[in-house]
Each structure stands twice: as structure tokens, then as C-alpha cells.
């Protein structure tokens, strides 16, 4: 049986498209290629010949298909889906009796051994779920009678057991890193238990902030990209809840910055750090972190700009449109010409559309005809969507051809 590959496919792209291997790795990650393949490509001595792993964990050496030389590659072909195989059947390219075999070759449906494995995993997962839920019910039943020492003892004994398991597996293994992520996730409930027991009066953003701060050493120790992403989600949640907990947009925090400006500044710093770190540390590689940070940054600035249009009284809100404009301009330059990222450009376009609509709503507020106003907004939206799709589609196609 032919091996099922998870690999990067190369296309003949010509000498004009030479790019460094690091850029190609980032490109591959952007296109959703599996991490193992990307790492394999990054570490290969010859980019045309590199090591890849099959889904079953077998190590194979792959040949790049029609590559033209080191660093001249990039396009990633899409993965086969069951619809593709059925399409072959529909168009008479595949005989009916061969369908199951073709589906199995494509990896869309399991083989006989695969079925047993799937069933086994399902039953194991279900059993684990039921047993954990059963234990949780029994603990909950006895919770009131446990007392402070009992509760904390139980919670920390669970955490300790987890840490022992991590030490046993080792942080070099994926299992150990995943367990550490579970420990990071369980820090929050432990802090919540502390807050509930001693009635600290902490707000949600306090809990999230302390959670994120305490998790930093563990995240650093893990050196694991998903752990960084989890930490980032916690930090962003802390910042966003801070906006809503602290009198929404109008509070002034340290250095005279208002809440929205603090969140924007912290996110901008985080974005710069992440972009810098992505090129240097494996655990920060990938684009998910940058995109998450950029979404919160642009989202905050977009809302602040819209509030400024409608003259909502908030500290320093008058500056928001200018900050928004600068951030979008710099972002366009960086992600269009320096490091192409269509997702970031899409985010910017979406933000511009929202601000455009808010601006139109503000300017046309005095119109008497509601129907006319709605039609104008719809027309602007149609124009923006069509132009945006054409522009971004052109860039995406161009990047593929260039890649």
C-alpha cells in the first residue's frame, strides 16, 4: 500500500521567486501545513530532499516534486477530501467498486485496522470522561464537609499529581508538554477557589491577570507553541475584561493612558515581540499568535474610532482615529511588502469597512429617509466587499504564483 504523506509540495516557480528557507517555513505554516512537515523541511540539509513523517509515525525521506533548486519553492497543494474522490466517481474516472479503496488511499475513511483504532479511542475517551465525571460528582457531594484544608489539599494534590506526571514524561515529549498545558489551565480554577474561600473581592480581570502572570514560568519552561497560545488567550482575556470592568472606555490608567490606549499599546508591544520571536524561537513560530494579537489590537482601535465618530465621552478618544490610521498604515506596509500575510490584510480591510460604515452612519444621521440611508450603507458595503475580495484574492493568487 502506498504511504500516506504529510508533506510540503513544491512547484516550479522560477528564479524570480527565490526566498529564504525561513520564509518558506513561515509560508508553509500560514498555509496550514502540519507542524511535523514544516519542522522536517526547516531541518532538512537539502530543501529538495527532506524527512517527513506519515500519520502512523513512520519516518520517510521525501523527494520534492518538480522543485527547481534550493529555495525556489513554496506552493502547497490542498488536501484530498472525500468530496474529491466522489467527484472522480461522478465523472466516471473511478469505477464504483474502487471507491472504498480510493477513499482509504486518500486517508478519508479508515481501513479495517483504522476502524478498530477509532472504535478503541472512542470507547477509551468515553470511559475516561465517565470516570472523571464520576469522581467529580463524588468530590462535589463531599465538598461542603471538606473544610478549607481539605479543599485546598484536594485541589493541590491534583496539581501535584499532574506535575509528577509531567516530570515522569519529561518536557521533551509532546505528552509532557500537553500535561503542562493542562496544569496551566488548572491554575485558574485553583485561583478561583482561593478567591471564593477567602473572599478576596478580586474582579475577573484580576483573576485572569494573576493567572497569566503565574503561568509565565511554566510557559517558558514548556517551550511549546500551543502553550504560548493558551497564555496569549489568557492575557488578551485579562486585557479585554479590564476594559469592561474599569468603567468601559473612559478610565485612565498608569502614565495617563486610558483603558483602550493601554490595551492597544500592550498589544502593539506584544505583536512586535511575537514577530521578533517567531523568527528566533521555535515555540513562537506560526502565525496564530500574531493574528490573535492583531485582532484584539485592531478591534480595540476600531471600536475606539467608531466611538470617536459618535462623540462618546471617553478619555483621549479624540486621538483614537489617528492612532487607528497609523497602525493600519504601518500594518499595510509590513504585511503587504515586508512579510506578506493575507489574513492580516483581510483584518485591516474589515476594520476599514466597519469604520467606513460608522462614518457614513454619523454623517448621514441627519437624513430624513431611513430607507435611503439603509440603501446607501448597503451600496457602500457591497462596493467594499467586492473590491476587498478582488484585491485580497489577487494578492493571495499572486503570492501562490510567486511562492
Amino acid at each position, binding site marked *: 500500500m502506498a504511504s500516506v*504523506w504529510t508533506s510540503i*509540495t513544491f512547484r516550479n516557480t522560477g528564479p524570480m521567486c527565490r526566498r529564504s528557507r525561513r520564509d518558506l517555513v513561515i509560508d508553509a505554516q500560514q498555509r496550514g501545513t502540519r507542524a511535523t512537515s514544516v519542522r522536517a523541511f526547516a531541518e532538512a540539509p537539502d530543501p529538495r530532499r527532506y524527512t517527513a513523517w506519515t500519520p502512523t509515525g513512520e519516518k520517510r525521506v521525501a523527494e520534492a516534486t518538480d522543485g527547481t533548486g534550493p529555495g525556489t519553492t513554496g506552493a502547497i*497543494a*490542498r*488536501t*484530498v*477530501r472525500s*468530496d*474529491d474522490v*466522489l*467527484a*472522480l*466517481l*461522478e465523472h466516471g474516472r*473511478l*469505477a*464504483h467498486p*474502487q471507491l472504498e479503496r*480510493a*477513499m482509504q*488511499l*486518500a486517508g478519508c*475513511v479508515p*481501513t*479495517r485496522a483504522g*476502524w*478498530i483504532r477509532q*472504535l*478503541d479511542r*472512542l*470507547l*477509551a475517551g*468515553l470511559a475516561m*470522561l*465517565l*470516570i472523571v465525571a*464520576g469522581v*467529580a*460528582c*463524588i468530590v*462535589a*457531594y463531599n465538598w461542603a464537609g471538606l473544610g478549607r484544608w481539605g479543599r485546598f489539599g484536594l485541589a493541590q494534590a491534583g496539581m501535584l499529581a499532574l506535575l509528577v506526571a509531567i516530570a515522569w514524561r519529561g518536557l521533551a515529549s509532546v505528552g509532557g508538554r500537553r500535561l503542562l498545558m493542562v496544569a496551566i489551565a488548572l491554575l485558574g480554577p485553583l485561583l478561583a477557589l482561593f478567591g471564593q474561600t477567602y473572599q478576596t473581592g478580586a474582579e475577573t480581570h484580576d483573576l485572569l491577570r494573576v493567572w497569566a502572570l503565574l503561568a509565565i514560568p511554566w510557559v517558558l519552561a514548556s517551550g511549546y507553541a500551543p502553550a504560548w497560545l493558551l497564555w496569549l488567550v489568557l492575557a488578551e482575556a485579562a486585557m479585554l475584561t479590564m476594559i469592561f470592568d474599569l468603567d468601559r472606555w473612559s478610565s485612565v490608567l498608569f502614565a495617563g493612558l486610558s483603558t483602550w490606549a493601554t490595551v492597544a499599546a500592550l498589544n502593539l508591544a506584544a505583536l512586535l515581540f511575537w514577530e521578533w520571536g517567531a523568527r528566533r524561537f521555535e515555540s513562537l513560530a506560526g502565525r496564530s499568535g500574531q493574528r490573535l494579537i492583531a485582532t484584539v489590537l485592531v478591534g480595540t482601535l476600531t471600536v475606539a474610532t467608531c466611538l470617536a465618530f459618535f462623540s462618546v465621552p471617553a478619555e483621549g478618544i479624540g486621538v483614537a482615529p489617528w492612532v487607528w490610521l497609523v497602525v493600519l498604515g504601518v500594518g499595510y506596509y509590513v504585511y503587504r511588502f515586508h512579510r506578506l500575510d*493575507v489574513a492580516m490584510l*483581510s483584518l485591516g*480591510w*474589515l476594520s476599514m469597512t466597519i469604520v467606513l460604515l460608522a462614518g457614513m452612519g454619523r454623517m448621514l444621521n441627519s437624513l430624513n429617509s431611513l*430607507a435611503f440611508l*439603509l*440603501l446607501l450603507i*448597503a451600496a457602500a*458595503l*457591497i462596493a467594499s*466587499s*467586492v473590491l*476587498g*475580495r478582488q484585491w*485580497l*484574492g489577487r494578492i*493571495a*493568487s499572486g503570492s501562490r504564483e510567486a511562492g
Partner: protein
Amino acid sequence: MNVEQFNQTLAHEGLLVAGGAPPLPAKRIPWHVVALAGFGAWLAAIFVLMALGVGALPLLESRIVRGAAGLVACVVCAGFARRRDAVDRATEHRQVFGIAETASSASSGGVFGAQFQTAMSLTGFGLIVSAILLRSEWSMPHSSSLVYAEIMAVAIVLWWFNPQAAHRQLMAWAALAALVVLLGVVGGLPLAPPILAAGAALIWLTQSRWSAFGARHAIDALGTAAAGLLILLPVGFNGFGVVEALGVSALERHGVGASLAGLLAVVPWLPVSLIGLSLIAASLAIAARHQAGVAFKAGLCVAIVCVTVASWRAPGIVACLLVWALATATGRGLLRAGALLGLCFHLFHLYYDLQSSLLAKGGVLLASGAVVLLIRVSLQWAKPR
């Protein structure tokens, strides 16, 4: 496996009927660009409809005008969608392997236009439904089963004639939802999950036949809707939740309806047994594809019967297991994820509803976990070698 490698593998294994290597796949526009255009299209459609609604509100008070406006919107959108579909199919014939890009070719040509038409057609459907309901003056307890039969008929016609993927999917859901309410009206709601289970199993296990007839997209939509409703429906299963919310539970309980209700009162375990039978039939069909031995098949049947008996108060568990098996057998990842989520939900719903202390619930959960582990061990023992 990517398309290029798959092409090579098929050629290497000699599985392709016609000669020559299939062409390379079409380029793909990133999902976020498509999502951006789709989001803009729906928002723009809402604004256009609101503008039209504000202008034409007095006219739409008439049932006839409302129905006619809805019909025109649906027909125009279906016409555009069919034209687009014809172009896509012609492209597919030239580029045999690119069919999975249909929706996105949708796409590359104009995801905005496709989504805008879908929004307009759905509004048309809404206007037709409101015209039908207006006949009974929006008063649900006075509605008759005919109302839901009419809605179902409209949804079926649109499902078949408008080939736009999202629209087709929504119409399939609407048609089956109308069928469920219709069953509720005649007192046969508990029979809805077994009917959906049988339908879903039949559709997904024979999908290759539909592909050969060229009706794959339409039937796929129906299969997805049947499986999706099957996961969701058993939530309010015993309490007639959905139908009672519409205020029609006590309607038309005469004739066939009364007989059905009477039958279900006597044998409340009938629906879950029927779903269990569907699961057994589907599992045996899948096992037969893999030439499994008699011992394995017998073990599988015994396991399914055990699970069905244990979960007779929560038919959703068996229903989700059926959807999981069908989705795995046909390579539908999203449906499989939905089935697993549904399974977790129904399991916890079952234990949450137990009229006992937390301690007793904990004990039952632990015992259930042990039973599942036992089934796992017995399957390991009976697995084909």
C-alpha cells in the same frame, strides 16, 4: 495526502478508469478572504432588505403580495444560482479533479454574489412561509398539519431547484424540521428520530450511488440535515419540547395521530429500539465492507444492544453513535465532531436528569465508565485478525 500525491497514487494503483493523469487542482482563495466577502454580502443583503422593508411595509401586509414577492425572489435567485452551477459544472468537466472547489469556485468567481443571492432567496422563503402562516392568522394552536406540509413542500422544491450550497443545506434543514413539526402535530414526534436515523443511514451508506446519478450535492445536504437534526432533536424528545413550544402538541390527536400516541404510550422504548436497529444495520454494512468475521459482527451487535438498553431514556446517545459511525465511514470530519460533542452532551444530560444524590450519580457514572471499558476489552478480544 494532497491532491497531487493522490493523483500519482491512483495512477500507480491502476484505479483510474480513463487514461491520462488528472489535471492539477484549481488554486484556492484563502478562507478568510471568502469569509470576509460572505460576511459583507449577508450584511449588505440585510441592509437592502431593511430598506425595501421600510419602503414596502404597507404592501407586505397583504398575504397575496407577500407570497408573490417571496416567490419572485426565490425564482430569480434560483435562476441565477442554476446558471452559476452550470458554469461550474462545465469547469468541472474540463478540470475533473477540481469539483471540491465548486463552492469556492463559487467563490473565486463571486462569493459575494452567491451569498447575496442566498440571503435574498432565504428572505423569499421567509415571505412565503409567513404568507402560509398568515392564513392561520399566526395563531399556532389553530394551525393544521397542512400548514407544515405546505412549508415542507416549498422547502423541498427550493432544496432541489436552487443549487447554491449553503441555500441547499438550509432548505434541507427547513424541510426536515417541518417534517418533525408535522409529526408532532399528528402525535408521532417520538418517531421523528427513528425516521431521521433510518434516512441518514440510507443516504450516507449509499452516497456512491447518488454520486453516480449526479445528485450528490443535493442528497449530501439532505443527509447532513438528517444527521444534524438527529443529534439535536432528542434533547426535547420525551417532553415534546420543540412542538410544545410552538403550542401544537394537543392538536389533531385523532385517527392515525391518536393511534400513534397510544402505541408510543404503551411501548415508550420503541423509538430508541428503532434507532438502535438503524445503528446495527449501519454497523453491519460497514463491517461487511471490511470483510469482518462473524464473531466480530456478533460482538458488535451485542455491544450495540447493551448500549441501546442502557440509554433507552436518552436516545440521543445511540443517535450520536450512529452519526459518528456514518460520518467516519464516509469521511465527514465536521459531522463526526458534531456527533462526539452531541454524545458528550446527551451523556451528561442523562446523568443530570437522574433523580438521585450526587453521590449516587457519581457511583452510576463510575459504573458506566467501567462497563464501557469492559466493552472496549471485549472488542479487543473479538477484533478481526
